[in-house]
């Protein structure tokens, strides 16, 4: 990607196991602490290294250097260990907050309750955090719930919206535009720059969605 970043893609099919290998690679690269590397971003199917293009130690043959770094990273990463983190996300799936549940129920020929039940039942995993601060792309959606993105994106997704598209779930940390279908809302603060770490989610985390009632949601917000 230009002369300030390198992106290595290892396929275009999203695979939980391959994504786990990327998390291990990112950890191994981070441990190297290269002074000219600013960011290491494990993504859905690949990994990006962003560097300071004016760093005095930046290698001249940047592509070759990054390639060598990735190969060494894979060798030292070895086993694909879990981040070990499990995140429980309380979700209110009430139709008052799951704004697209009615439409999804028609589209999928499932009841609204069944959509919520299936979403909360399966185990999910954070594949990537990106787009805006703290926003997770979470894999592991029940294939029966797979829908394409909405034809017309919403201009405002509410803070904490739980939304699905394709085989993924997203949690919106801030009020932003978005094209995914909203099935519920969490009272959790997804991103808080004053906390360490600032983001509730990190790549590799295992995620469970725990249904809560509307009154519980209101009590927790």
């Amino acid at each position: 990607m230009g002369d300030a970043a390198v992106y290595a893609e290892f396929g275009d099919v999203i695979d939980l196991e391959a994504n786990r290998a990327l998390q291990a690679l990112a950890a191994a690269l981070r441990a190297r602490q290269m002074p000219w590397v600013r960011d290491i971003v494990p993504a859905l199917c690949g990994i990006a290294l962003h560097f300071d293009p004016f760093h005095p130690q930046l290698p001249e043959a940047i592509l070759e250097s990054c390639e060598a770094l990735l190969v060494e990273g894979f060798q030292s990463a070895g086993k694909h260990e879990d981040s070990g983190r499990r995140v429980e996300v309380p979700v209110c799936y009430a139709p008052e907050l799951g704004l697209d549940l009615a439409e999804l129920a028609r589209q999928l020929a499932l009841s609204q309750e069944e959509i919520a039940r299936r979403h909360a039942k399966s185990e999910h995993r954070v594949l990537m955090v990106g787009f805006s601060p703290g926003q997770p792309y979470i894999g592991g959606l029940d294939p029966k719930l797979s829908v394409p993105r909405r034809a017309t994106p919403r201009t405002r997704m509410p803070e904490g919206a739980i939304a699905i598209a394709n085989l993924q779930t997203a949690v919106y940390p801030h009020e932003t535009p978005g094209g995914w279908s909203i099935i519920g809302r969490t009272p959790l603060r997804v991103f808080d720059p004053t906390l360490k770490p600032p983001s509730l989610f990190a790549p590799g985390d295992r995620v469970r969605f725990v249904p809560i009632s509307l009154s519980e949601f209101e009590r927790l917000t």
Partner: protein
Amino acid sequence: MSILVNKPGLLSSVQDGGRHGLQHLGVVPCGAMDGIALAFANALVGNTAGEAALEVTVLGPELLFEEGALVALCGAAFDARLNGAMLPLDRPVLLSKGDRLHVVRAVLGSRAYLAVAGGIATAPVLGSRSTYVPARFGGLEGRALRMGDRLPVAKDAARLAATRYARLQSKKVFDGAIRSVAWSVPALTRPEREPIVVHAMKGRHHDLFDAASQRLFFEATWRVSPDSNRVGFRLSGPLLKRERAAELNSEPACLGSVQVPTGGQPIALMADHQTTGGYPKIAEIAAADVPRLAQLPPGGSVHFARCTLEQAGELRRVLRHRMDTALRALNWTFR
């Protein structure tokens, strides 16, 4: 010690060298749109290159200094007034308690950096003082300046101003109203002649576009559309089409990536860019040229010249050399 904001200007925000190392958590790098001008402004007042400064945009603020300060304004050529007299640009200027600085409007370019000796002292958030307006953090309460704000600067700013100004050799006072020097650093990023030429490499998805679009991207003259901002510059010109409009996986994006959404109007990602995106990238702008693109005002025009990764590296080395040459002279002056 603080600076009182009498008028905020169009978009004035605290920015530094950027919030790096957290893109894996979706944290946008932010920072100065024109990092070269920021580095020069800081060097002129004796700060390190990435210190926090005030980024002013097109129409600048009116500021009242409650203590003395050593300041420098670099980047776009601005009509700026110190107590009504013309403020000289690209050089250190010593201000006294009660001085009024009015950064009126940009004459050439669109962004300038007001650096203050000691730096702007808003609280760092996640390792940076840069303002990120969409998520409301960094800088002054995560927002642009407002009327009546008090912008905090380093506690010892007045003392630093006096000692650093005294250490400036070849001191030449212009007249009674302005205390400054007769020399200046070069302005490397102003759009002297439009369309400016910005170098770009083929993007990852360049070959997904049809032959006409691939050609047009590097042949057309693009205009910066009025709905451009710190997140991205929307470029108006011919619409770019892909052979097949399949959905792509979201993947990392970076400063200078040129994305093409379904509508066909390209967007060059700037300092507040999202960390990942799902639109195809037709090109990647050379890192050395991003600060010059950042100086184009809405309506400004740009032509993209195709370059290789090696040529982009050479552009960086030439730029680094020009900057180092200018900054070396300064370091000598400050001894």
